[in-house]
């Protein structure tokens, strides 16, 4: 589903290279965890996958279902089924949450040549998905993310993910700032979306989230490259020994 080949990328503004020869393959149905210390390029990778303009790919390629997505803008990538759950979802005053959800869902449908949702159908989908994530209707009446607590923002991200039904989900430090109850709700939301044709990349600093979202593969990112891959036991090893040993081996 996703093949990242010898990817090199830098910050467009100052040319700082962040991703330095990254290779990664994720298959349909797979949950891949990407772990690594601060500054290893985890968030950058999530932005590059979703097409943020602030980064430039200087070498290598990203293939999604066999096609390069490097020339696609974020909206086109989203319409093809790539979803980024933000580490820090932005607050946008003046944009009503419901209006935003409707526009996003319908624009993606339009881009795929599907019919737009009717209002009752849209309302029903939102209501069902919100209930599962314990999202209050009052929250949905507020402007997008405005005044949401950290936990509410993360739940709202997962709500969007559930409604948009992406094929490739990228969760960027979704566990940061969540207490254990909120973490469980979010993890349940992610697990509920698990399906044979949907892949998920879980980017995290800590093993904690992986107790609830169990990965099929674990990859350690350091200085812009994957320096080690393994199964879920690798995450436990990292939890016990820290990153130092693995980094030492790779150096």
């Amino acid at each position, binding site marked *: 589903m996703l093949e990242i080949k010898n990817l090199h990328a830098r910050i467009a503004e100052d040319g700082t290279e962040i991703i330095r020869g990254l290779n990664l393959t994720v298959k349909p149905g797979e949950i891949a965890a990407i772990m690594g210390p601060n500054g290893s390029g985890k968030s950058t990778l999530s932005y590059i996958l979703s097409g943020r303009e602030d980064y430039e790919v200087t070498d290598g390629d990203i293939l999604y279902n066999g096609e390069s997505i490097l020339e696609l803008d974020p909206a086109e990538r989203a319409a093809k089924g790539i979803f980024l759950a*933000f580490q820090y979802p932005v607050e*946008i005053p*003046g944009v009503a949450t419901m209006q935003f959800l409707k*526009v*996003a869902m319908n624009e993606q449908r339009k881009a795929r040549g599907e019919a737009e949702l009717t209002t009752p159908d849209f309302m029903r989908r939102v209501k069902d998905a919100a209930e599962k994530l314990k999202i209050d209707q009052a929250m949905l009446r507020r402007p997008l993310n405005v005044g949401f607590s950290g936990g509410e923002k993360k739940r709202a991200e997962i709500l*969007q993910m559930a409604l948009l039904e992406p094929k490739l989900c990228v969760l960027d430090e979704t566990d940061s700032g969540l207490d254990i109850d909120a973490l469980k709700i979010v993890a349940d939301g992610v697990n509920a979306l698990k399906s044979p044709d949907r892949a998920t990349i879980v980017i995290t600093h800590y093993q904690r989230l992986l107790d609830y979202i169990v990965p099929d593969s674990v990859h350690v990112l350091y200085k812009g490259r994957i320096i080690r891959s393994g199964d879920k036991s690798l995450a436990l090893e990292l939890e016990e020994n820290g990153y130092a040993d693995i980094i030492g081996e790779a150096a």
Partner: protein
Amino acid sequence: MNMQTTMRFTAAETALVEAFGAQFGDLPGDGAVAGRRDRLLDDLKKAGLPTRRIEAWHYTDLKNLLRTVPDVVPVPAIDPIAPVVEGSKVLSVLQGEAHLKSSIEGLDITAFKEKLADGSAVTGLTALDKDDAIGRINGSFVRDGFAITVPANAEIEEPIEMQVLHGAGQIHTRFPVSFGAASRATIIERHQVVTEGAALVSSISDVVLEDGAEVTWIILQQQGAADTHLGQIRVRLGANAKLRLFVVNAGGKLVRQELRIDVEGEGSELTLRGVNLLGGESHTDVTLVLGHNVPHTNSTEIIRNVVFDKASGAFQGMIRVAPDAQKTDAKMACNTLLLTDDGDFSAKPELEIFADDVVCGHGATVADIDRNHLFYLMARGVPENKARAMLVNAFVAEIVEELDDEKLVEALEGVISTWLERHA
């Protein structure tokens, strides 16, 4: 003799003087009104149209910007149009003439022409200061409008729309409106082009809120791309009166809207909100002169500007706090979304505070669309154009939603999104 004393008239100044001469016998009014008109025109002749050297007109050099003045043309057939807020009661002024079928039960409404004819209008035909070009032009040329009295304790449920509709030519209107003690009403002062061609419009509203009156007053300006609009609202707030003044500029080639507000009663509250949508090669100026003249009064002012194309704009916000106006609380903000390298917007806040126990603040920002916001929307599949339009809309919608009245909000959001669709 000093050579400076002979001033050269611009084409527009000459045209104004000639238009006055040509119409003089025909302008409505008794002898006192005629005398006042003549004096105001004379003052205009002496001072000339204001230039950038006049502080109050620094950002809007009327002498240079007003190139020509359209001829006074015969009244074309214009019909009233549907109100912007459904269910409003409508008073129409068609090509500068009050449409006499207009009346609203429970309100005392008179065509302004009658006030001119009986001379009672003369007290309002004034310039507020030596630089009040709008007061002079309007006082010289005004033909009609509506004088409205809302009785004390009256509660007018539906909005009252005063629609000033016009085609090419000169339109000079006046709206003295007084709100009796503890009355409540919503007024929509709507300036709207309906047929092609350049127009010069001047319009002054003289608004008095008696003690405890609560009023929402919306100025909705949607003039044509060739029109000059010179608007002024003169407001006096009594004790415990509450005025929400909402200004939307969404049209015109050369626009100056002055807000001259005197807070004269303790416990009163002014909420000023403005949305300026600027496009093409237009110039739009909103100038506020607000006097907090007594203790214990509040005001907040938020102006939001969106600049496209080669448009320019200015907001001047003068707040004067009188020496004994203690406990004044005034906050002013002017935020601009500058979406083009060829456009500009100037913000000039001025606080003149003569009291020592007050809270007064102001702030101004100029920015492009927030890249983080844009990325977020696009990452959810919203194409760039649509995402930009949503964010521009959001920038002004935040202010509109404060009106907290579903019908008003919906109507104004409709006006704004229609304008944005045409310009984005």
